């Protein structure tokens, strides 16, 4: 009869049946012995059903848009296959497909926890530097040399300020 449950990942007969409740939704997964081992079901440290569900959900929607991370070259199918991101930039690149996945996994979509002040400072430093350099290029191209000199000085000040900061940090 068609009652034999098949493994979610291959077509073998499923002998491991898992149930976990994530965000009040019941998730059931049937696995064969081999896949269960591979997915770390027998490893109490490494196993999370949410993680595995995400991977299998990810594996299903194969016909959606092909996105690619400009920083590390990771693309949608890499993400669907591994369930993991390639680098920090991937989170920007894969934003369009991320929301439903995160909704299934977490209690919210926005970080409300700790804010690392140094990481934020560095980020705003890089953004400002980027803007100033672009403005400098525009000014030079428009032959607005007075303005360009102003930007150059600002960049200089920002950079030397940052290296001072670096010295403090690395001291």
């Amino acid at each position, binding site marked *: 009869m068609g009652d034999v449950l098949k493994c979610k990942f291959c077509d073998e007969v499923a002998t491991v049946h898992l149930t976990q409740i994530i965000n009040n939704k019941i998730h059931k997964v049937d696995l064969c012995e081999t896949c269960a081992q591979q997915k770390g079901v027998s490893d109490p440290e490494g196993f999370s059903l949410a993680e595995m569900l995400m991977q299998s959900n990810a594996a299903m929607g194969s016909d959606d848009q092909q996105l690619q991370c400009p920083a590390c070259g990771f693309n949608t199918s890499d993400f669907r296959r591994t369930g993991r991101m390639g680098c920090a930039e991937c989170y920007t690149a894969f934003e369009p497909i991320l929301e439903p996945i995160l909704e299934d*996994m977490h209690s919210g979509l926005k970080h409300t926890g700790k804010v690392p002040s140094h990481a934020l400072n560095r980020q705003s430093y890089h953004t400002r530097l980027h803007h100033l350099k672009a403005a400098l290029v525009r000014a030079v191209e428009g032959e607005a040399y007075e303005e360009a000199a102003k930007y150059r000085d600002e960049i200089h000040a920002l950079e030397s300020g940052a290296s001072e900061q670096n010295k403090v940090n690395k001291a």
Partner: protein
Amino acid sequence: MIESIIGGRKAELTQSSKRTAPVVLSTRIRLARNLADSPFPQRANLSQRRVVLTDCVSQIQRLESMESGTFIEIEQLSDLEKQVLLERHLISSELIESSKGCGVYINSEQTCSIMINEEDHLRIQFLKTGFNLKSLWKRINSFDDAIDQYLNLAYSEELGYLTACPTNLGTGMRASVMMHLPGLVLSENMEKVTRAVGQLGIVVRGHFGEGSDASGHIFQISNQQTLGESEPEILERLGNVLKSIIDQELNARFKYLEDKPELLMDQIGRAYGVLQNAHVLSSNEAMHLLSLLRLAVDFNFLPESRRAEVDRCFIECQPGHIQYDVKSDIAPELRDTARAAKLRSVFSKLPPLSFDSLEENK
């Protein structure tokens, strides 16, 4: 390679002189962190991984709290050494599998281990005996502040700390408490509890083995979600669930004691006898007997001071530790003999079981 760690005289889990508690063995918090400028470890090539490793190690070494720590490159460890560290939860099986270009930093008290190039660039773990979520968070939080100062962490205002797997996104924090729950197992309530707390986003895992009858009756209980709540909120919620599990466990124990005192005394008495006299003990059986002995301490059948010894044996009777102890490659059967010998010697001076507390209650 790891003698300094295993032979250490002040390891939190095995040498702690602090008072141990019923039900809760230890508390652990780990934070997943990544560097902004390098692909995540699985995606990075070996030379990129080496750069991350060198960077992280040189920065971590400068931290005051890490001065007395040891850095170990996983590649340089034997399989047995890896297993011993794994059994102590100082490294993970994922780190072992990564093998090349990864390592771990362990402080001398073994209360802090930092895995480098595991699933994420950094996995910072702090642990303490007993039920200590808040104080542990304070310590790991300030350690993390120092890391932020020296290393450029991947972070977004929207999604928080960016991690290789989206399941860890946001706080990157997993807090877990190791609990000894023989009452809930013996009264067959463990599955119900697992299901109930699951609805609250809390995960229960058997520690030494699988499912609801984990050997040693030891379970690791942790938060599942990491995004959408702040760290103190997650810890508060987890803490409340754990407190109610402790209550239920104690209720289950006293109900068992009231309903079946002879059965309970018999089980504990047999465990006592076997631990003092057995010559062959498998890991599973040892865990089960140790669990009953711990229960005996909790019921005051044995002096409170003996609990630390039992907790130490839970760790040191695992296969890797036994093998490491005898310093040679031995077959599993001989390991069982060595384990029994060790337990006989540890418990040879155990005072007789005293069931007076039971009589008083009658």
